[in-house]
């Protein structure tokens, strides 16, 4: 499938993500991100045609947050959608915004992801993941140690140190990102000493609950070229969900959703060597154990290779393949915004505007992922230039439809002819309603009986 129109990201904004924001209400938090995005884009609200709003269902205790937030999101008298797909929400609104612009329905769409977690209760939102009727399968949020245990069973303590090293890397990156929530000064030993949640998952491996919002403006290629900000092109994206439950132990038979999603996206875009062709990866990492595990799935690497790359620090900002220069989800997690922040940060890296946590080389392609529920996966590829991207589809409906339909058209005409006398009969029926209707019913019934 190809696009009707090219789409570019033309503005990126985020609030400062923090654990405690008593100074603002929800609409004010959203406004911080919207103002930041408008300022970044050099556009005004008049340029925005539509707002796509996303957050986690039941997390804040207000009904239809997209409407409450009109006070702060600039949605007054604009078209709008609310999208909520759990953890992937932020990535889904990015995909939806891309689709809305590519389709030609809107020229400029602003995606807004939001969560003010301290106002609500995560457990309230997530409790009903497990089926209260049947206690069906294993359903939790992102807190599970089962994948980590697989690694420990295979590599022993070496895997634990690798997960700890990735957590320290995230902290080091987050300290270079003024908008990150947790900007901790950690050692691997600190991680290993932190409270155990579910072996081998420890408190410091896990993402926090943050208050934050993110806004990303998508525009059609034609407009993007005229707008003040450097465009970041949306190359392609994929959404996939294959698992009904989390990994429960034992050997894995099928590849995880993430691997299948990556393989399909790479096939669609012609990427053969992701490590070489992608410059930076902003991954939705709910815990450092999953960062460790999913690197292999997304980048199509075996575990041993991933482990060695972690040990050689190759996923650091200055490393061979930078992952989560922003500090990732383990540093910042306003859930409805989290996956959109991945797209936003990937976009900043492509533009070269990430500031202190900018990867110190030219980024031609960046990848962003979203995670939710049981490995629900969204992957998006962003690109600096249009080179190598599929040309947009030029609509030629008349030519494409001609040859065969000629014959079909004749048969259609014939059908219409057959139909016409019936129409006439119907019209006659109307002239004397009661009698004829009875006749018609009678005929129909007789037909059925035969």
């Amino acid at each position, binding site marked *: 499938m190809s696009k009707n129109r090219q789409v570019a990201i033309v503005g990126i904004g985020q609030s400062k993500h923090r654990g405690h924001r008593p100074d603002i209400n929800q609409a004010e938090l959203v406004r911080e991100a919207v103002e930041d995005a408008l300022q970044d884009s050099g556009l005004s609200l008049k340029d925005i045609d539509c707002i796509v709003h996303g957050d986690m269902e039941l997390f804040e205790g207000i009904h239809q947050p997209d409407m409450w937030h009109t006070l702060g999101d600039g949605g*007054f008298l604009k078209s709008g959608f609310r999208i909520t797909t759990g953890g992937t929400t932020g990535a889904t609104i990015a995909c939806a915004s891309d689709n809305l612009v590519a389709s030609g329905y809107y020229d400029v769409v602003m995606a807004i992801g939001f969560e003010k977690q301290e106002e609500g*209760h995560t457990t309230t939102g997530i409790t009903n993941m497990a089926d209260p009727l049947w206690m069906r399968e294993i359903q939790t949020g992102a807190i599970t140690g089962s994948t980590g245990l697989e690694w420990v069973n295979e590599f022993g303590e070496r895997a634990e140190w690798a997960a700890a090293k990735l957590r320290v890397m995230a902290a080091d990156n987050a300290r270079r990102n003024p908008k990150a929530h947790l900007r901790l000064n950690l050692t691997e030993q600190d991680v290993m000493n932190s409270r155990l949640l579910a072996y081998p998952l420890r408190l410091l491996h896990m993402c926090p609950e943050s208050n934050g919002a993110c806004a990303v403006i998508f525009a059609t290629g034609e407009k993007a070229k005229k707008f003040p900000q450097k465009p970041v092109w949306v190359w392609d994206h994929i959404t996939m969900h294959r698992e009904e439950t989390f990994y429960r132990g034992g050997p894995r038979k099928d590849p995880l959703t993430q691997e299948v999603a990556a393989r399909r996206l790479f096939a669609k875009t012609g990427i053969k060597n992701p490590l070489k062709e992608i410059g930076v990866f902003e991954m939705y990492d709910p815990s450092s154990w999953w960062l460790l595990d999913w690197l292999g799935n997304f980048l199509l690497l075996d575990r041993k290779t991933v482990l060695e790359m972690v040990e050689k620090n190759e996923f650091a900002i200055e490393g061979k393949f930078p992952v989560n220069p922003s500090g990732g989800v383990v540093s910042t997690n306003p859930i409805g915004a989290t996956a959109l922040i991945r797209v936003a940060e990937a976009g900043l890296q492509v533009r070269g505007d990430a500031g202190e946590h900018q990867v110190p080389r030219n980024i031609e392609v960046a990848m962003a992922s979203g995670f939710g529920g049981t490995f629900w996966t969204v992957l998006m590829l962003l690109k600096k230039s249009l080179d190598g991207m599929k040309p947009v589809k030029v609509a030629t409906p008349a030519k494409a439809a001609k040859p065969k339909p000629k014959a079909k058209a004749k048969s259609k005409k014939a059908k219409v002819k057959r139909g016409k006398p019936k129409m006439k009969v119907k019209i006659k029926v109307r002239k004397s309603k009661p009698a004829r209707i009875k006749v018609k019913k009678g005929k129909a019934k007789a037909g059925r009986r035969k």
Partner: protein
Amino acid sequence: MSEQDKWCYEVPGKLEVPYRYFAGEFGSKFLVALRDQAKILGCKCPKCGKVFIPPRSNCEQCFVKITDWVEIGPKGKVVSFCVVRYKEPYLPVEPPFVMALIRLKGADSDLTHLLSEVDPAQVKIGMEVEPVFSDSRKASILDIKYFKPAV
């Protein structure tokens, strides 16, 4: 019907909903003025000049920040109302009572609040009302105990 005769079963839900709603720094100024000075404040958009109550730090129509406060009321007029006759645990007072939409003097938006000291049958749109403040105020919208017909 006995449990044995049932043919469709269900299990009760167990959701806990401990939500908190933040007024923020801007909205809290309104609550503090209400608590400490028994004053009702409106906030004024620097662009369109509209005065809002309850407070909002952003004019959603002009999309500009609001920083100016003006004292409004305390008298106002009933714009619309309804009589609440059923009892629910979350209601602020015992029914029957009147909930009214009140346009305070100097405001461009309406405040929903209780209307009391009046027979519900006597409440009329356009009626002039004034606030009765609570004796022990706690920085909540119920620091205005209710509105009553203006003397």
